[in-house]
């Protein structure tokens, strides 16, 4: 029986459900799956991966700590560690999706000789602890039937991880488009249609796209393919390992191609001409002082670009860095991973924040829902005018939304309507944006925040450190 309080995020799994109880994450495993789940938690490979932080740390929950809604539950509850910020796969840069796929394949290969397999392989089974992927869906690990030589989750791995990466590499389709449904992803047939004849011209695409799509069309209505068993389990393991290695090769080929790409926004920091060195130095000094003074344990950087200010904030605590451009997010992710910085970069447009997704719009929470009152500091550096002009979001609406996210401070940069960057996006429509004039901007800011410090840069831009007014 599924308890009434089963989380809408994990109701699909017949073996277990996940709920949040008094700030803790509790996994309730049903009686029919309990024995295998316990054995899996004791497996040396799973223990090692947990110790290394690659699988979410999990412990049995004593009966006295069991949530009341599970008092009569015929199963057992376990507690997971909390990952600081829950991201959706649609918010990842392609490189992050490749890292999640690589983790999934590595885990599958490590579990193979131990007699386990993954029953599903969606990127929703992975979260990022800052820049590192962590496998979080432990009930996905189930015993493998001896002799079975086909990976039951392979199709899902292809449609939700491999094909979105190929679509990104070959035609530049954003991950946000292909993974708006992270359980279904992008089908072979859809990608074959998008690629057209190209799928037959590149041998690398035959196995992954062209042949599966062609065979599916030919096999339509022909009934389910027969089951397959190897003569021995040793042979089955050999076959499965080769299959997984083949997927690893395809994945690393995509990852290699992603390295070579670049974009306008990614080059922005290096090529910006609207900042003189004095402006830039003054801006960096003010921001560094403000961050050191406010000591935020959690910072949200909206419009992070290549993350230079996220890195300053990372000296004080965890940072979630959001930017509209996949390449910028990929660059931040690579630097954070190499430097082991506590930064989680995500692709997103604050003007159109990620909506709630999935069944009844409850499986994946919206960006604003996940961020609500979750940060000590929000950075909005040279981003308000973009949201005002490009997205049409009034300044008052922006500050209202941010006041629901920050628990304490906002560090915002004002860009005057006479600024060349403002003019470049307004294109003669400056009179439409009266709330971007400095007196109106400050008045609007003061409705929600108290200004603690401000500093005008030589180029006319103004930096404000403001504290949220108590409601």
């Amino acid at each position, binding site marked *: 029986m599924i308890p009434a309080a089963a989380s809408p995020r994990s109701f699909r799994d017949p073996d277990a459900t996940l709920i949040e109880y008094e700030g803790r994450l509790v996994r309730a495993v049903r009686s029919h799956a309990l024995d295998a789940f316990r054995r899996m938690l004791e497996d040396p490979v799973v223990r090692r991966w947990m110790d290394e932080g690659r699988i979410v740390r999990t412990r049995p929950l004593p009966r006295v700590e069991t949530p009341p809604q599970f008092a009569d539950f015929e199963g057992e509850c376990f507690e997971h560690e909390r990952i600081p910020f829950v991201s959706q796969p649609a918010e990842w840069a392609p490189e992050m999706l490749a890292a999640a796929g690589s983790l999934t394949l590595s885990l599958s290969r490590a579990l193979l000789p131990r007699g386990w397999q993954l029953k599903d392989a969606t990127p929703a089974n992975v979260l990022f602890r800052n820049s590192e992927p962590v496998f979080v869906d432990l009930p996905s690990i189930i015993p493998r039937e001896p002799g079975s*030589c*086909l*990976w039951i989750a*392979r*199709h899902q791995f*292809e*449609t939700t991880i491999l094909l979105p990466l190929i679509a990104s590499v070959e035609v530049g389709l954003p991950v946000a488009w292909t993974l708006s449904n992270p359980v279904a992803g992008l*089908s*072979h*047939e859809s990608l*074959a249609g998008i690629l057209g004849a190209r799928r*037959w011209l590149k041998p690398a695409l035959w*196995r992954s796209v062209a*042949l*599966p*799509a*062609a*065979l*599916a*069309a*030919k*096999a*339509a*209505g*022909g009934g*389910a*393919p027969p089951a*397959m068993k*190897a*003569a021995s389990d*040793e*042979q089955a393991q*050999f*076959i499965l390992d*080769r*299959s997984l290695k*083949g997927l690893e090769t395809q994945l690393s080929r995509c990852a290699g191609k992603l390295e070579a790409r670049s974009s306008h926004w990614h080059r922005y920091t290096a090529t910006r001409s609207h900042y003189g060195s004095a402006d830039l130095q003054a801006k960096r000094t003010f921001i560094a002082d403000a961050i050191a003074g406010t000591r935020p344990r959690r910072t949200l950087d909206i419009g992070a670009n290549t993350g230079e200010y996220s890195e300053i904030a990372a000296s004080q605590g965890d940072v979630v860095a959001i930017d509209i451009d996949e390449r910028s997010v990929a660059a931040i992710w690579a630097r954070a991973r190499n430097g082991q910085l506590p930064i989680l970069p995500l692709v997103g447009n604050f003007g159109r924040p990620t909506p709630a997704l999935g069944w009844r719009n409850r499986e994946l929470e919206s960006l604003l829902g996940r961020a609500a009152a979750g940060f000590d500091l929000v950075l909005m550096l040279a981003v308000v005018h973009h949201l005002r002009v490009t997205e049409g979001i009034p300044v008052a609406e922006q500050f209202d939304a941010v006041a629901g996210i920050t628990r304490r401070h906002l560090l915002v940069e004002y860009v005057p309507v006479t600024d060349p960057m403002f003019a470049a996006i307004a294109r003669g429509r400056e009179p439409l944006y009266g709330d971007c004039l400095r007196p109106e901007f400050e008045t609007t800011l003061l409705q929600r925040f108290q200004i603690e410090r401000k500093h005008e840069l030589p180029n006319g831009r103004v930096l404000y450190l403001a504290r949220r007014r108590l409601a």
Partner: protein
Amino acid sequence: MKHPLEKLACALAVSIAAVAPAGAYIDPGTGSRLLQMMGAVVAGGIFYFREFRLKLMSFFTRREAPAAEDASEPPPGDPR
């Protein structure tokens, strides 16, 4: 193209390459699963070949190895 196998291969290639919209229900994953099965058949064959090669090598190694075997340390617990 006189050989019947060549004709068959050509017909198969054309048949696969020309993806006609199927009127019937397409089960998602059918093509992927069929390919996985084909891969499993090939890998299963490689497994047997590898086993055969290992047996063959161990047969010859055993024939050439007696002198070396005598010189080696017995494994722990060996009753020799």
